[in-house]
């Protein structure tokens, strides 16, 4: 299998889907001639033309509303928002329109809308442009929220998202676009379902649940732990909603211990919601309270040094695991 970047995997998914189905079009700020802020749509304007690759005004509310309207009208839009931070301007449309219409109008309209947008920090974008806001949307029934971490999953899940009849928020990460990974050759058809997590590494001492960019730090942490004899099982959620709780419970039954490693803040976030579900469904299998690894509970600092201090690190994951895995279990 060849190795390509996350960015290229996304572009391939969009191109292959657009070739497959004429109703699919993409829209967003600077996505046409410029190729998008993160160069995901580069070349698509040349291939598909301005009817299907549309630059929009700088107004998230307008373009999200237009995309929802197009979906209602029978098209299948892929909307790119420059970051998830700007989606807050369009959140009324996402929460009150996209997530609701199918339910409020007797199941008649479908909204086959994909909203692509990166979240996360680490590139010195400052407090307003570095946030992980997936839990805001994952709270809403009627929305699907997925966050693939590898090029393979990105391509397979974007295809599934495009084909799904529901609004899907497809959240990328600014620091994932250059991550490389194996992906089947162009034209080889595969999809990854929107409701399945995946065990990315097997282990018996602790389950580390993670998603998006934190997967890569977590896998590195698991390597370090293995050198000390601790075998961590790493679960990549891939989808925040719907959540693959069965996969998690099965793993907890085996390891009895859980660390949730995420880039977002701790309070009322994805990890805490997940922890509550684990306590609900796997309480009798727990041997220790769940450990959380998160960003510091502050707005993201602009300073490079402070930003690094605020973001979760590999060592934070290692330390969280060691806090709940007894030494004697490993060496005894």
């Amino acid at each position, binding site marked *: 299998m060849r190795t390509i970047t996350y960015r290229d995997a996304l572009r391939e998914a969009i191109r292959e889907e657009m070739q497959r189905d004429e109703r699919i079009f993409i829209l967003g700020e600077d996505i046409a001639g410029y190729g998008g802020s993160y160069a995901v749509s580069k070349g698509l304007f040349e291939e598909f033309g301005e009817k299907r690759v549309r630059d929009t005004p700088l107004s998230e509310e307008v373009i999200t509303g237009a995309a929802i309207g197009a979906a209602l009208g029978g098209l299948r839009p892929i909307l790119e928002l420059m970051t998830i931070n700007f989606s807050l301007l369009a959140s009324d449309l996402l929460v009150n329109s996209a997530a609701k219409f199918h339910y409020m109008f007797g199941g008649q309209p479908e909204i086959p809308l994909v909203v692509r947008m990166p979240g996360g920090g680490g590139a010195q974008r400052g407090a307003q442009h570095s946030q992980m806001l997936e839990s805001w949307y994952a709270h809403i029934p009627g929305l699907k929220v997925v966050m693939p971490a590898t090029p393979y999953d990105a391509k397979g899940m974007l295809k599934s998202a495009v084909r799904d009849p529901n609004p899907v928020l497809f959240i990328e990460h600014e620091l994932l676009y250059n991550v490389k990974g194996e992906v089947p050759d162009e034209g080889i058809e595969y999809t990854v379902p929107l409701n399945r997590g995946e065990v990315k590494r097997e282990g018996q001492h602790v389950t580390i649940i993670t998603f998006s960019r934190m997967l890569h730090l977590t896998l590195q942490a698991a390597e370090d732990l293995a050198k000390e004899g601790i075998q961590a099982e790493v679960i990549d959620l891939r989808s925040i909603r719907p959540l693959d709780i069965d996969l998690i419970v099965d793993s907890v039954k085996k390891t*009895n211990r859980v660390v949730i490693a995420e880039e977002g803040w701790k309070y009322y976030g994805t990890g805490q919601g997940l922890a509550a579900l684990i306590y609900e469904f796997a*309480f*009798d*299998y*727990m*041997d*220790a309270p769940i450990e959380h690894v998160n960003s510091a509970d502050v707005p993201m600092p602009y300073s490079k040094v402070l930003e690094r201090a605020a973001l979760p690190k590999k060592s934070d994951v290692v330390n969280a695991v060691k806090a709940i895995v*007894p030494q*004697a*279990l490993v060496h*005894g």
Partner: protein
Amino acid sequence: MKTVEMPKMGDTMEEGKILRWMKQEGDSVTKGESLAEVETDKVNIEIEAFAGGVLRKILVPEGASAPIGAGIALIGAPDEPLPDLLTGNGSARAAATTPKETEKGATTPEAPAQKLEGLLREGTVGYSQGTPQQPGLQIAPATESFERIFISPIARRIAEEHQLDYSRVEGTGPNGRIIKMDIEAALAQRQEIPAVPLPVQVPVEETAPAIIEAGEVTEIPLTAMRRTIAKRLSQSMQTAPHFYVTSVIDTGKLADLRRQINEYAQKEPDPVKVSFNDLLVKAVALALVRMPQVNVSFAEDRLILKKQVHIGMAVALEQGLIVPVIRNADQRRILDIARESQRLAELARTGKLRPEDFSGGTFTVSNLGMFDVDSFTAVINPPESAILAVGSITPTPVVIDGQVVVRDRMKMTLSSDHRAIDGATAARFLQEVKRLLEEPFGLLV
């Protein structure tokens, strides 16, 4: 600083009285050493140190009582400061009840207390006295005798599945929480001791006791298994009034049947050899189904009739004995029983029995026939109420139709707990066993 707590030494125990301190304040103690002799509602027992150090403070003086779980002493480093609360005078009062309160406590019915404790264990009702981070302060006043045990959900689940009393397991997790590993270690230790959940301390990391040669005697300190045998069988003899009924069995037909079964069984795809003991187990199991009043436990205020028949078989080991259990022996085919008993005996000899292999028995068979024993009486294995002691099969002259003929005969003696079983019941049970062994087709049909 570690708090020595009044241990729970039986289901009905609510408090214990310190008869004698065997260590004084300032004495150094090692793990496993006896600290004090305690009187409970049933027996007098010695409390062992669960950690080494110096006995820094005695909280409950001799003659005073304390509820289970209450601190009775503190063990720590010689220079470790005592918790502030205890440097004053009122320390002993905090934990101990006055004799008057003890009397009052003794008249309190047991059932509600047990119920409350059950709720506490299930976590329905939370109770924590003092500040958990400071073990020295965890002293329950007399009116609130239950202290919360910190144990992880999976650890509690495993302990309950194996009927392990985790109140005395030392937790190695944060805040002294008992975690899965601690329970697994305790269960591994328990494997060395016979049958049923035991109200004795599970020794953690016990080192091999030193054998002392001095003058004309050799002193061999007790192993955990030997101590358990000593405690439990003494308790059985002291609390259960034993009586004995003996019967002689003609084993002629039984031997014929066994020979025929074995001829058949050796041609099985999985050949097996059936022993006399396997047939005995089956006979006893069937007799217990017909007479469930023998398949019983005495529980102070009630009798507990067991619906299932699990037959324990005493297996001698070099270092003691253990009683693995053949579950639902009444429902098993004889060949199954033979296979299961051979499997269990092998596991017992190699020390690989799991707790579920030797717990939950409802009746025990002890067979010393292979040692050329005419007959003997056995001590009941609590909480069972009866045990069958089986001797050797011996050619014996007997008178049949006025003629002296030689027949193979075997003596069996049933020990019964008279609190649960009366003489006539025991006799009828033995009669049923005898009938099944002398007309052994009853074991098959």
